[in-house]
């Protein structure tokens, strides 16, 4: 059987008010972004629990992107400011334990930024493609190669 080419599978946590609408806009503007992303809509980037990111990686996705409104634009006034603090420590901790920085990305994308959303997803998926499949949580002894 012919070997199928590996395609990265990434999950995107996009906030309902900005980034999700931004992704929607890039779609209606017929801009192309890779099908590798599975988008999960969340109410606010402040809703993102570090558990979402770690569990996604543990369950085998190759990358996680979290995107919310630009600082100052939050529908709930301060959700993304609080999120920004959390993301900063999550970022540092993931680097420290040795998770490739390309696998987890944080972005600000507004509802009007359709082209930026497409570009962000494109670049992110390319980055993940470069670091290859996520074998972090694979157990060679149990799961095989």
């Amino acid at each position: 059987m012919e070997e199928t080419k590996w395609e990265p599978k990434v999950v995107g946590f996009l906030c309902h008010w900005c980034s999700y609408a931004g992704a929607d806009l890039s779609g209606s503007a017929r801009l192309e972004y890779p099908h590798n992303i599975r988008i999960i809509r969340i109410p606010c980037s402040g809703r993102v629990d570090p558990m979402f990111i770690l569990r996604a990686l543990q369950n085998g996705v190759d990358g996680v992107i979290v995107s919310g409104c630009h600082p100052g634009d939050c529908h709930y006034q301060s959700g993304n400011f609080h999120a920004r603090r959390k993301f900063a420590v999550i970022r540092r901790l993931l680097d420290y334990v040795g998770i490739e920085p390309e696998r987890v990305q944080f972005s600000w994308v507004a509802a009007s930024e359709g082209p930026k959303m497409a570009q962000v997803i494109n670049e992110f998926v390319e980055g993940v493609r470069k670091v290859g499949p996520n074998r972090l949580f694979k157990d060679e002894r149990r799961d095989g190669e």
Partner: protein
Amino acid sequence: MENRLKEEAGKLLKEGKVDYIVGYGKGSVKFRTSPLITNKEEELENLVINPFIANNLSRYPIELKARVGIVVKGCDSRSLISLIQDKKVNREDVVILGVPCEGVVDIKKIEKHIGKDIDQIEEIKREGENLTIQANGSNQTLSFKDAIFDKCLGCEYPTPLEYDVLLGTEISPKPDMEKSLMRIKELENMDATDRWSYWREEFSKCIRCYGCKNVCPACFCERCFIDVNIPQWVNTYATWQDNLVFQLIRTLHVAGRCSDCGECERACPVGIPLRSLQRKMVEEVKDLFDYEAGVDKDALPVFTHYEDTDPEEFIK
């Protein structure tokens, strides 16, 4: 110091200012101490203060839900202040008996240095900057600095930051950060993949006893995410993947509250270097937000507020 403590504790109980005294008593294992919680004056005789008072007692006021007279060292006072900041403990409900502390002796380090088991050690005596250890009838000396916990080497607050009674004189800090953070620096200099294998190897040992979370004064959630089963975030049986994810999330939950008391690592029965995770986050929080946990009881906890100027160069 010990007599002064007994006297002050007795006074507090007699005058009815507190319901309980939380201090250190003699442990069941040689040299070690264990928490002594009592409301009886006659039991105060068993209170001790010595170079082995490793336990961080600041967790007890939350669990006792009463007025408590509590014995704290410098690091413990930061945990307690952190709990006051988080409104888990009322400042009015605690009478803080502060112990200035030059460092707590790590018996494991002594065992390693002199190559003898704790059962063979008969006496440990402090003489100035040295410890004299009597084992199997012969004496050995060891520098006090070589015998204390790594966290104590880098201690910046040897005198409690908040107290009602100070049992002793203030001590000026002499932190040796290089030695205290040695293991973290070693890890930082490793390759990312090596670091991952390192933690993977360490967490393969974890038996999920939850000692780290049970002993941690910053782990005060009434229901831990580990006990939540809808959805079940982490499997309840021990696999290295789940052990690691559990500890990473715990690390993030206590980031900004952790005062590097080192209890998690001390409690760990399989010897996972947990302090290398927690202390690293203490450094990161300081670097990112210029914030230290438990230094100012009136300051807002770091993750309950934000600044417009918070770092975001990592956000693309």
